[in-house]
């Protein structure tokens, strides 16, 4: 069965290319959301197998989205890979411990992204 991946990132073009690229090189079904609030709604409704979540977003930021996902019993077991454009967020992400499963610093190559997704999915299945 196809794995469903949800990308929550306010950069619409980034979401577009990640969706196109992952669909081309894997069997994932990709859903995107460009706002934190919308992302949470989609996660609850569609129950993706994994979420790629950007940290810095206007409105509800990635850390708040993560908190809300982990509080809700429908979404708390979905593995999350955090996306960041800032190296300095690494320490913040590490502090999240088991709340997030991995992280990726932008810009990221398809092969790295795909590798990380497979790794997290294989650990958490």
């Amino acid at each position, binding site marked *: 069965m196809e794995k469903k991946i949800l990308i929550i990132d306010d*950069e619409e073009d980034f979401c577009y290319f990640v969706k196109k*690229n992952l669909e*081309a090189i894997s069997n994932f079904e990709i859903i995107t959301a460009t706002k934190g609030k919308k992302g949470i709604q989609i996660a609850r409704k569609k129950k993706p197998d994994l979420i790629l979540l950007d940290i810095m977003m206007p409105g509800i930021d990635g850390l708040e989205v993560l908190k809300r996902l982990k509080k809700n019993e429908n979404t708390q077991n979905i593995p999350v890979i955090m996306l960041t454009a800032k190296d300095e967020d690494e320490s913040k992400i590490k502090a999240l411990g088991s709340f997030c499963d991995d992280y990726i610093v932008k810009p990221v*190559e398809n092969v790295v992204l795909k590798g990380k997704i497979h790794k997290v999915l294989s650990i958490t299945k």
Partner: protein
Amino acid sequence: MKKQILIVEDERIVAADIKMSLQRLGYSVPGTAVSGEEAVKKAEKIRPDLVLMDIVLEGEMDGIEAASAISSRFDIPVVYLTAYADKKMLERAKVTEPFGYILKPFEDKELRSIMEIALYKHKMERKLKKTQQELIQSEKLAALGRFSSGIAHEIKNPLGIILGGSEFLEIKLSKVDSDVKTAIDKIKESTFRANTIVQDLLKFSRPSELKTERINPNDLIRETLSLFKYRTPLIEIKIKTHFAREQMYLDIDKNQMQQVFFNLLMNAIEAMPKGGAIMIKTYKMAPSESSLADKLCVIEVADTGEGISKKDLQRIFEPFFTTKRERKGTGLGLSMTKIIVNNHKGDLTMESKPGKGTTAKIVLPFH
């Protein structure tokens, strides 16, 4: 060591008399000049600690013009020597910022006090200039740090999109045309390069905390050299080491200091595109170099490469200054290297002779 004084005086008897006075006072006189032109030539060759200059000289260049050339070109202090001083001449002389005037005839004790004050004043001015330059440099770095932290996020996001877009095109088009594949590869390569620059910039904004451990620098250099083992350019480059026999242990951050050695070795290799030799030395500083010498370890990385011009050498630690733009240098490597060494309470200096090679010298306190 005796201070060297160059005498510029067109009356030979007077010059000989001054020379004797200076020698009696403990100075050395490596030469005398009788004209302004000769004074400039001798100052360039001898590089004395001070020039004692007669204002009125025969020939096209008078003492004031010669003094102006000597102090601006070689940074050598000048003390004027004159038998009479009219207001107009003094005004002209003042513009050249002399370190003193002495009126002929004079006694030894007058000469001595004026010479000593001039030498001390010049030493202090040099020190002040160096401190000012360091201050400007650190202010610049701090401003750059604040700026880069702010823009890093704004740049990395579009870079993510450029890379995603390039890889999308790669999937869609590269099978059709090899020129397209080459173009996409170049876009990707530039994206990574821009990303590296942003990451390097961020290191300025967040000088990472030192995780120090006590390490023998010789061991760390050996470890760093092993990283170069499989690099192809080394085929043409011989690396020699001469390690201190004394056990000197440094309190250093292993990763950061390894980065320092790596950067210096890479620079040395890149300075020798046609091959050459690198000499790495560690030694305890000679007592004559500093009063703290018995606590200071010196690490030298010398190459036999192209060398760096004097003009470039003055700017070598400035962020974004690079002599290898065509080789895709970002101009941040050496500035970062110096920051790391300074953070370890040490210093990094560079000496170079164009056509002969460059030596990077690190001084660090040891235990």
